[in-house]
């Protein structure tokens, strides 16, 4: 019972994390739902005494990556983000969505997923470098270089937009 109660308390933060990954309200709540379902199913794998938020974020992030891959969704996973190609892409609805995005959304949207998740975990969710790196299964050096590149791109985008 305590497990569900802890998840309930975590839910507002989890939704924030999901929103920053998906950049879309409905996708984010669908993602949260899938993550909760998986967590309930795999609750035995969570070790009491370890951080439940890290465990949940990891589940959520892994499902999102799977979703993106399975859907063949255009997601800036690679570093060579080609903005022109995105604009000229065939996904008309997505283009319209982009036009309605705020500056921050648009800037985040330009980031490759690997930079975006690093930025979100540290700058928005407040994880320490060590915790964020463990959650993402990457060395701290990789995390900090993603943070540096992600921040540079955001400063560039938001500096111009401001």
């Amino acid at each position, binding site marked *: 019972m305590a497990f569900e109660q802890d998840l309930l308390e975590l839910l507002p933060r989890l939704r924030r994390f999901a*929103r920053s990954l998906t950049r879309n309200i409905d996708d984010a*709540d669908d993602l949260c739902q899938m993550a909760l379902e998986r967590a309930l199913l795999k609750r035995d794998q969570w070790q009491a005494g370890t951080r439940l938020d890290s465990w949940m974020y990891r589940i959520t992030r892994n499902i999102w990556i799977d979703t993106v891959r399975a859907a063949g969704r255009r997601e800036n996973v690679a570093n060579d983000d080609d903005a022109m190609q995105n604009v000229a892409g065939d996904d008309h609805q997505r283009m319209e969505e982009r036009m309605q995005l705020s500056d921050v959304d648009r800037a985040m949207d330009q980031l490759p997923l690997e930079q975006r998740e690093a930025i979100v975990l540290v700058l928005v969710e407040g994880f320490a470098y060590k915790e964020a790196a463990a959650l993402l299964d990457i060395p701290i050096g990789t995390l900090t270089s993603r943070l540096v590149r992600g921040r540079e791109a955001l400063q560039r985008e938001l500096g111009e937009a401001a």
Partner: protein
Amino acid sequence: MTFDEETIIAYVDGECDAVTARRIEKAMASDSILADRIAREQALRSRLAAHYDPVAQEPVPDRLSALLTASMESNVDSSFADRKADEEQKKATRRGFGIAQWGAMAATLALGIVVGQFGLGQNEGPIAQQDGRLIASGALETVLEKQLASVQSDDSRYRIGLTFRSQSDQICRSFDGESLAGIACKANDQWRLETMIPGKATSDYRQAASSEINALAAAMMADAPVDAAGERELMENGWK
């Protein structure tokens, strides 16, 4: 003095050691470019937080919180190991007049109401009487016999909860419906009703009903409830 990008953002993110932080602060006092640079990074942090924080203030959609509250109600003892560990404590409770007895007593009291509503002997209802026993009939019997909990639809009249082997070595299933909820166990090709309480749509319904059923189920279990695959296997074997 110059600092590399990593060091600057580590400072902004509160990841610097104290000595480096002091050096940066000292340098900032005389280096306005560095000071601006750090101010910009701090502003970025604030801007992202201000953008995403309102999401965490939004009310959580019902469909997400309901998922967890439903799990709280249906998860009697998610881990069988935990249940075993609690066994001694439960036994001690049972020796007194514990929850199982109170639950059974409540169920017995409720039974009068339920039976009164359906009228024994009319086999169209969910309950029938045979050789002095109450058995499931009609739609309830069909659901108990043929419905897998893993694939049930929301509009079914009865929903299956847990399926488990009882200490008297019978397969038992808990169910929940508008008019009736309870536990039935398969014996001699019949689903015998072990426990019944009024369902959601009745005036006697209590919010705690489903957890009460789950507590009674837990007291009857010889083993952990079966999973979806185990349930399918049992159905194929006629619930034996």
